[in-house]
Structures are given as structure tokens and as C-alpha cells.
């Protein structure tokens, strides 16, 4: 099954930020999709864009829901007493979303909605939001998160953000966008390569590597700051592969100041530098476990690049991958149970998932050049870099491998995705 789901048309109407748009293509479908009907909110035409359209798109894109056709309902209900449950039962909807939008005297808007259980003919929950015109998208994503959580029991990621690097011509740009790829903002533009963006755990800072001084140098930038700060690591040789400790105070990174690429720990400002690995081999790509106790990393100490695990304070590492001669880019799922990584199999670079308890490995993709996996904060989706007709695109796969999405920008290479954390409400 292959559905094409393009946001481009919607965006032509919205015409928000002037950036090239990400379009999303969904391949395959999830099992046991929950049938949901999202009715247009009464009075929502006063908003600069349709809030229920965004909610519907979010739910569809997650592949956990099937949205039911809602045409021909007149008048639209905004309260539970106005709902004809028999009608929605016959349309095979399990859940129904109704709501209304109003303009407040101060020029802001109020949007209230209710999520209803159709078989039980009861309200599951409801929220009222006060918002400005600029917050319609964010509010829609929050409504979708609410619905997702109530109906699946897991936290939604629609209101989280992603970071990625775009190469267009000779220009590199680090961007942050909504999880659906919209509302992109530029964090840094450079004529030299940018790579390895990594969100701080609280989502307000970004670590990245820039080649602006003709070699890799490590920066940590406050996302609200408009200026690039001083580098946190600019030692002899190369400075790369930043990874945040879960406490947000420390950063692991790879330096060559003492010889080959080795893993070091430093404060977020670069101070208090400590060396963690002491091999004569390549040690790189550190990634903390969610409890902060261990670090997974890539090393060629055994003759080929493989994944190892060590204590976050350093010490003897244990080898984790054994199959094949190229296993790199370890990323641990937010629940600590799954290791996603890239494996070279017959010349193809594929995304793999290892159950850390049973050590069972599953190939999640069959791409040619899949790279840089990044878990969504709820662990359900893995975003990664892929290619399509030799152009860099972002792709996402559900952590069970069942459905995939591709996100691309026309005439640009897009790469190095990093999914941001849950943000406080």
C-alpha cells in the first residue's frame, strides 16, 4: 500500500515562512489503526488557517489512526448534546473530535475541543486554549498530542521539533522545524559544512559541528540567541560527534588533541575536560543511555567499526555488535530497550534495531545509504537520513518497521536529522 500525502497544497494557502517546504510521503500502513472523525470546529474560519486540517494530518501521518470522512454534517456540533452518535457509529468512527473557535476581545482566540468515545457516547477529555494567530499550528499539534495520548496510551510527538542540515548549492543551513517539517527556522547559515546537530535534553540549546574555520569545531548555541557563540571545543585536529548527557550539564564529544579520535566528557561550556576512552584506535559517535549511566560508541579497535558500551565515567568497554564489518551510529531508544544503528550489508547501509535484552536484531530499512538515526522522544518513530535519486532526504520509520515516510525538499540535499525532546506545556 502506498499513499501520497502532500502538504504542499495546504502550504501554498498558508504561505508562512519563506523556506522551501518539506513534503511528506507515507509508505505502508500501521496495523490496528484507530478510526477517528475530526469535525471542523464551529467558527474556525476566523483563524488564519484550519486547525482541524492540521490535527487530521498529524493523526494520519502517525499511521496510528484512520481519519473518517466528515462531510455533510450540518449544523456542526460543538457540544456533546448536539452529537448524533448513531450517525458516527454507522460511519464506523470509534472516536469523534468536536470543537469551536472564538475571537477574544483582546484580539487573541479561544479554541476549545472535546474528544468523544462513540461506542460509549461519552467524553474522553477536552481542553480550551487561548492563542494568538501565530500559535494555530502549535495548538493544532497539542490537540493532536492530546488525542494521540488518550487513544493510544502513549505520549504524542506532534508538538515536538526536529533539526536538520540543508545543503543548497554551496550553502549549508542548520534548521529547526515542527515535527511535520513545517514552520522551519534557520539557526545557522554557512558556506562551510555543518553537521551533527544534537538537541540539549531540555530543548533550548543545540550542539553542532561547523567547518567555518576549515576544520571541524564544536559549538553549543542557545536557540533563542541570534548570534553564534564561541566554540566549546576547538582543539588541534578535529572536534566532532557531540552527545548530551541526560542532565543537560555535560557533553560527550570526540577530540583528537591527544592523538587519534577519542571520547571526552566536558561541561556544556567546554570546561572541565576529561578523557573517557584510551585506545589507539578510532573511538567516536558517543551516545548516552537515558539513565545517564552508560555510553554507547563506535570503535574500530577490533579491526572494523563496531558498537561498544562503556560506563559513562569511562572504563573497559564491552562489544555490542558482532555481525558484519561495519556497524556504526548507535542511538538508544528513550526507554533504553532498543539500540538503533547503521549496518553495512552487501554494500548497502541499512537502519537496524537491536532489542538490548534479547540481542535480537531486525533490519528496519532496505535503503542504499541510510544514515544518522534519531528516535522520536516517544520512541515510536526513528528519523534518519536517506537518499532518493542521489538527493539527500529525511525518512522516518516506525520502530516496528511497519511504515515509512519520506520528507524531502526540492532541489536541496537534506541530512543529519535530530529529533528534539518533549517540551513542557
Amino acid at each position, binding site marked *: 500500500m502506498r499513499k501520497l500525502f502532500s502538504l504542499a497544497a495546504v502550504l501554498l494557502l498558508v504561505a508562512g515562512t519563506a523556506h522551501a517546504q518539506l513534503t511528506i510521503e507515507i509508505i505502508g500502513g500501521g496495523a490496528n489503526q484507530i478510526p477517528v472523525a475530526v469535525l471542523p470546529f464551529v467558527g474556525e474560519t476566523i483563524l488564519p488557517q484550519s486547525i482541524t486540517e492540521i490535527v487530521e494530518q498529524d493523526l494520519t501521518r502517525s499511521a496510528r489512526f484512520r481519519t473518517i470522512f466528515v462531510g455533510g454534517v450540518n449544523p456542526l456540533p460543538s457540544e456533546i448534546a448536539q452529537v448524533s452518535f448513531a450517525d458516527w457509529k454507522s460511519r464506523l468512527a470509534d472516536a469523534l473530535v468536536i470543537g469551536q473557535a472564538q475571537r477574544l476581545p483582546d484580539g487573541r482566540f479561544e479554541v476549545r475541543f472535546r474528544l468523544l468515545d462513540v461506542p460509549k457516547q461519552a467524553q474522553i477529555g477536552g481542553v480550551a486554549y487561548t492563542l494568538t494567530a501565530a500559535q494555530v499550528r502549535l495548538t493544532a499539534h497539542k490537540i493532536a498530542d492530546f488525542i494521540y495520548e488518550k487513544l493510544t496510551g502513549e505520549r504524542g510527538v506532534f508538538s515536538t521539533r526536529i533539526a536538520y542540515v540543508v545543503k543548497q548549492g554551496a550553502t549549508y543551513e542548520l534548521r529547526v522545524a515542527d515535527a511535520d517539517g513545517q514552520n522551519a527556522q534557520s539557526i545557522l547559515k554557512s558556506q562551510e559544512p555543518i553537521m*551533527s546537530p544534537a538537541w540539549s535534553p531540555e530543548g533550548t540549546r543545540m550542539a553542532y559541528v561547523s*567547518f567555518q574555520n576549515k576544520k571541524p569545531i564544536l559549538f553549543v548555541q542557545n536557540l533563542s540567541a541570534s548570534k553564534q557563540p564561541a566554540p566549546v571545543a576547538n582543539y588541534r*585536529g578535529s572536534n566532532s560527534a557531540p552527545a548530551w548527557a541526560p542532565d543537560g550539564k555535560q557533553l560527550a564529544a*570526540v577530540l*583528537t588533541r591527544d592523538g587519534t*579520535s577519542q571520547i571526552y566528557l566536558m561541561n556544556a561550556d567546554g570546561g572541565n575536560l576529561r578523557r573517557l576512552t584510551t585506545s589507539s584506535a578510532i573511538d567516536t559517535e558517543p551516545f548516552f543511555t537515558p539513565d545517564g549511566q552508560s555510553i554507547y560508541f563506535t570503535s574500530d579497535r577490533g579491526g572494523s567499526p563496531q558498537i561498544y558500551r562503556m560506563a559513562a565515567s569511562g572504563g573497559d568497554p564491552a562489544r555490542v555488535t558482532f555481525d558484519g564489518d561495519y556497524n556504526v551510529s548507535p542511538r538508544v531508544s528513550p526507554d533504553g530497550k532498543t539500540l538503533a544503528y547503521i549496518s553495512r550489508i552487501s554494500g548497502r547501509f541499512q537502519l537496524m534495531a537491536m532489542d538490548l535484552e534479547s540481542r535480537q536484531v531486525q533490519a528496519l530499512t532496505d535503503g542504499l545509504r541510510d544514515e544518522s538515526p534519531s528516535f522520536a522522544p516517544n520512541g515510536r518513530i526513528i528519523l534518519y537520513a536517506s537518499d532518493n535519486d542521489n538527493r539527500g532526504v529525511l525518512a522516518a520509520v516506525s520502530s516496528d518497521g511497519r511504515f515509512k515516510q519520506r520528507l524531502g525538499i526540492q532541489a536541496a540535499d537534506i541530512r543529519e536529522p535530530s529529533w528534539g525532546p518533549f517540551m513542557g506545556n
Partner: protein
Amino acid sequence: MKKAWLSVLALALIYGCASTPETKPAEPQAAPAQTPPAPPPSVGVKPLPPTAVQTDPLKDPNSGLGKRSVFYELDKYDVRDEYRPLLQAHGKYLAEHRGSKMLVQGNCDERGSREYNIALGQRRAEGVKRMLVLMGATDSQVEPVSLGEEKPRCSEHAEGCWSQNRRSDMLYGGEY
């Protein structure tokens, strides 16, 4: 520099042409009329080979220093034997020119992890540096850095390009 040299030559030629017609009235004092069209010596001397430039061994294709790149097999960072004479020549030059600095940039092809490729490129550059130091350079003269797969010389997605991109480049101070 090569261009500058050529333009000097060109000037000399132009001057020479302009002065070739022997229409100059013979100067009475010049007794031996053996060298009639000789241009004024001050101008004629100037275009003489600016020796410093022409004999700069870094620019001289015959000095063994004109080549600056070492290429690698997939996943590998060892310097193959065929590059020994090249590194020997550069090591010797650095030993004889202690004021010279060199940046060695390690590169990788586009396949695999970008971050691992930074480390692999660094390893390639380090291997070149190690050999240069063995050949007489000092540790502080040579800085190995990595460009990973970020600065490909060749951009097609095939082995023909990939083998060009698995490379270390030696750049002297002023060249980067």
C-alpha cells in the same frame, strides 16, 4: 606566480619587438656596433628569471614535491608503499624549512556514517603526518585535520569518484 612570470616574459617580448627594427640612428659613441638592438640594460635585466620563484621546489613538478595527495582503499587508512617517495620528499623539505607549516586534510568517500568518516579522515591525515615526522618533519610543523566526507573533490556517486575522494591532501602554510 606562474602567471606573473609569464607576464614578465610577455613584457620582455613586447619590448623586444618594439625595439627590434634597427631604425635607431647609430649613436656616435657606441664604437663596437656588434650589438645594435640591445635594449636598455636596466629593462633587459629585470625580466631575467626571478630565481626564487622558479626554483621553489613546492611549485616545481620535477622536485617530487608538486604532488600533494595520498589515496586509500575503502575503509583503510594505511599509507601505501607507492606514496613513500612523495612523503619522503615532503618530510625532507619540512626538515630543511623549519619555518614551514603544513596542514594535512584527510577525506573520505560519501558512504557510511558522517561522524565515523570524520574520525577515519583524521586517521588518514595522522598516518601521513606520522610518516612525515619519520622523514624529518617536527611534530609542531604538521597539523592533521579531517574533512570527513564533507568536501568531496568529485561528486558522482560511483567508485570512480569515491576513489578520488578517499584522500589526504598536504597543504603548506599560505595554501589554505
